């Protein structure tokens, strides 16, 4: 299909998902989804044609290519009878029973009162590109999210919970450990202090901060990013190294080939405090080519350059040293969401709870609020001390941009940020 510098590809996707709604130890609703689709893309001279048809196999591929040729003004392909094979009666999610038993046990023990949704999603993708380039990938992802009631020292408390991980032998045990930690007794929270505050982003949640202030602005189609005019600029302390690495398959955003069939490589977002490279797909790769960050949100969506797993290099400080450097401020282990407005550089991170730090020691529990700042100012306010352990943040799972949702992940050490603005929840 392809000629010269054109891009021409056919994408196939088969998505299966099992969702179980759990309420107080019982499954209240079961949902199973099986979606197949074929898309075709042709890009030349700044114009892209993209078509999508539901279905799979030869009939759907032929229909997609025929539609793409018609859209591009080419000669239509002859219509000929296709071999229509009945889909094989494959068993979907044979492990569903095992998961149900595991969850029943874990929830009964740590969070008997809950409203949680458990999901297993399997995505099989295939790309056939110009020059006989072809690649396929399979990802299985597990999520548990919702709310539960914890019996805390100050009485019952509703707490949010989110866990996202690639499916593996160890994932059930890790989920149980995280659930137990989330259900641990806590004191009654007081409102967080409003105004400029120094914070430590702990337990790996700094990955979300860097995802917002580095990942999104360095996506190659972020045409209003202030970083476009700052190549190799010093943005932060010399000790700061941040990369985006899809090859970390133990993280939620990992993959072996991206959705355009490119083998991904790790991209330095910040290296020794200096601004690194952009995250590119085939369309935006230029002379050096794609970095393997072309990602599709679903079978009907075209690839776009998107981030995957944000990894922040650890330092050498232990918890005591980090707290001593902080002095007074907030210790935050959980972020429930984030957003960035790229043109102005403003970002927000929402935290459901935190611990106040006074004179280098952990003090009272505080409730939720928003951390706000400006990305260049906040990067320059990163303290040159990083925790010695890089921790995976499993609450970090899905990133939405223009309604396109892709799995993302991250791991980070404890990071100390100065002068962020805290706004308590109303």
């Amino acid at each position, binding site marked *: 299909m392809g000629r010269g510098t054109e891009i021409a590809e056919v994408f196939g996707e088969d998505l299966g998902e*099992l969702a*179980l709604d759990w*309420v107080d130890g*019982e*499954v*209240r*609703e*079961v*949902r*199973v*989804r*099986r*979606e*197949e*689709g074929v898309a075709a893309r042709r890009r030349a001279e*700044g*114009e*892209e*044609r*993209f*078509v*999508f*048809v*539901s*279905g799979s196999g030869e009939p759907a591929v032929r*229909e997609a290519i025929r*539609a793409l040729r018609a*859209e591009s003004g080419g000669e239509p392909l002859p219509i000929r009878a296709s071999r229509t094979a*009945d*889909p094989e*009666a*494959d*068993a*979907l*999610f044979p492990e*569903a*029973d095992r998961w*149900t038993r595991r969850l029943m046990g874990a929830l009964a023990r740590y969070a008997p009162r809950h409203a949680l949704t458990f999901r297993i999603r399997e995505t099989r993708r295939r790309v056939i590109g110009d020059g006989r380039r072809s690649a396929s990938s399979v990802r299985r992802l597990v999520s548990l999210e919702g709310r539960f009631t914890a019996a805390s020292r100050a009485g019952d408390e509703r707490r949010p919970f989110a866990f996202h991980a690639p499916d593996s032998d160890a994932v059930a045990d890790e989920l149980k450990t995280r659930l137990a930690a989330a259900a641990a007794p806590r004191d009654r929270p007081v409102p967080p202090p409003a105004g400029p505050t120094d914070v430590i982003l702990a337990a790996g949640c700094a990955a979300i901060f860097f995802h917002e202030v580095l990942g999104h602005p360095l996506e190659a189609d972020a*045409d*209003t990013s*202030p970083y476009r005019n700052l190549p190799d600029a010093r943005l932060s302390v010399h000790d700061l190294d941040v990369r985006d690495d899809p090859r970390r398959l133990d993280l939620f955003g990992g993959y072996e080939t991206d959705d355009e069939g490119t083998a991904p490589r790790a991209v330095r977002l910040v290296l020794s405090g200096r601004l690194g490279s952009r995250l590119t797909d085939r369309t935006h790769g230029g002379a050096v080519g794609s970095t393997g960050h072309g990602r599709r949100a679903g079978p*009907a969506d*075209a690839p776009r350059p998107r981030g995957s797993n944000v990894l922040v290099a650890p330092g050498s400080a232990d918890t005591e040293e980090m707290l001593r450097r902080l002095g007074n401020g907030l210790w935050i282990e959980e972020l429930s969401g984030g957003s960035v*407005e*790229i*043109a*102005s550089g403003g970002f*927000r991170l929402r935290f459901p709870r935190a611990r106040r730090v006074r004179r280098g020691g952990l003090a009272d529990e505080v409730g939720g609020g928003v951390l706000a700042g400006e990305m260049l100012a906040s990067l320059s306010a990163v303290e040159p001390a990083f925790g010695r352990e890089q921790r995976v943040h499993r609450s970090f799972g899905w990133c939405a941009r*223009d309604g396109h949702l892709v799995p993302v992940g991250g791991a980070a050490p404890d990071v100390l940020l100065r002068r962020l603005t805290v706004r308590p*929840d*109303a």
Partner: protein
Amino acid sequence: MNAEDVAGELARRAPGQWELYRKTAESREWETAAGATRVSWNREEGWAARWWREGGPRFAAASSAARLVPAIQTADTTAMSDTPAPEWPSRNVPARAAEDPLPEPATELFADLSRAIAAASRAEASLASLAVRSGRASERLVNAAGLDVSQELRLVDGLARCVARRGARARETRIPFRWDAAPDLDALARRLADAATLPLSDRPAPISSGQWLLDPAVGAALLSSLTPLFVTDRPPRWLVRGALLPPAFAIVDDASRDAAYDGEGVPTRRTVLVEDGAVAGRLLDLMGARRTGHRSTGHGVRPSYRLPPRAAPRRLFFEAADAVAPSELLPSVTRGLFAAALTAPPRVDVDADRYEIEFTGISIAAGRATGPVAGARSSGRLSELLRRIRRASTDLQFFPMPYPCGSPTLLIERASFD
């Protein structure tokens, strides 16, 4: 494998307790940005089955009938708690086919909207990208009670992205839109220009309390955030007496002009949720109707074939008994702020009776605009905010939330700002 085969499979597994939904949709999308265009064509087919067996609701969705059957088999294996099945509607309406092609968008839309934004912003803002989608969908729903209804839906919607610059500072804004009639480019351009340029002023709110004038887009976002009040089984404690708004106001949901049926095959009808300021009804799907012992109000909404229907608004809007012309509202503001656009999604906790709205706009004194306000926040008790709505204008406008949600310009007394 066809619809009859799948219906047979469902009837065998859950006699008398099943429904089968099929959707075929076609859409065309044009996306234009600086130096690049993308034209997309999409033909989607979706099947969804819902049935009750051994206690609870089970749901399976697939992109073909052949794939739906194994999905049904998988969903049928998990043990569930007991949830009563709904009373299924029954009605037969012959299918109506429409084969006319999708309309092509006007090729000059990008240029026209660019010009309108430049005019509305005194050339400070420019259109960065515009995506317009024109689509149609055919739906058919059958169930165990003999229901067999079909309908065709049409939609033109999109997303516009605008960037404003002043000196070294920049601001980007994205606004989704939906056109039920001919495109109103001037209104869209004004919203984009205001949302992008007003925050660049750096001027904080000059007052900490006063009157608050809400643009229809801000009023619609506030109304949309009240949705939990109309779908919950247990209204919050502060609403026990039922008074939500001043007596001259009503909240209504009426999607009659959009579709004849909801996602469960129940005929669409006007539902009054708040009448004379007091809560008078709620949005019910079949499950909600079963729980409460009432009839479904036709609000079983399928956001996609991939998800089971849930009670949700379909076309929600404010009605005011003594609405005045928009030009009459501004002179009645002695000291206050006009909220032209939101700078963050509204945060409303209906259980805790709290709200927080961040906006950009214009300060007003003695009925005259006195200057831009880069950013302000109003927060407090939701119940107080709603009871302090004093007047509304006649300029009811609808915005995608993503369902159409409509509000006129609203005037609120005694709001607090920071």
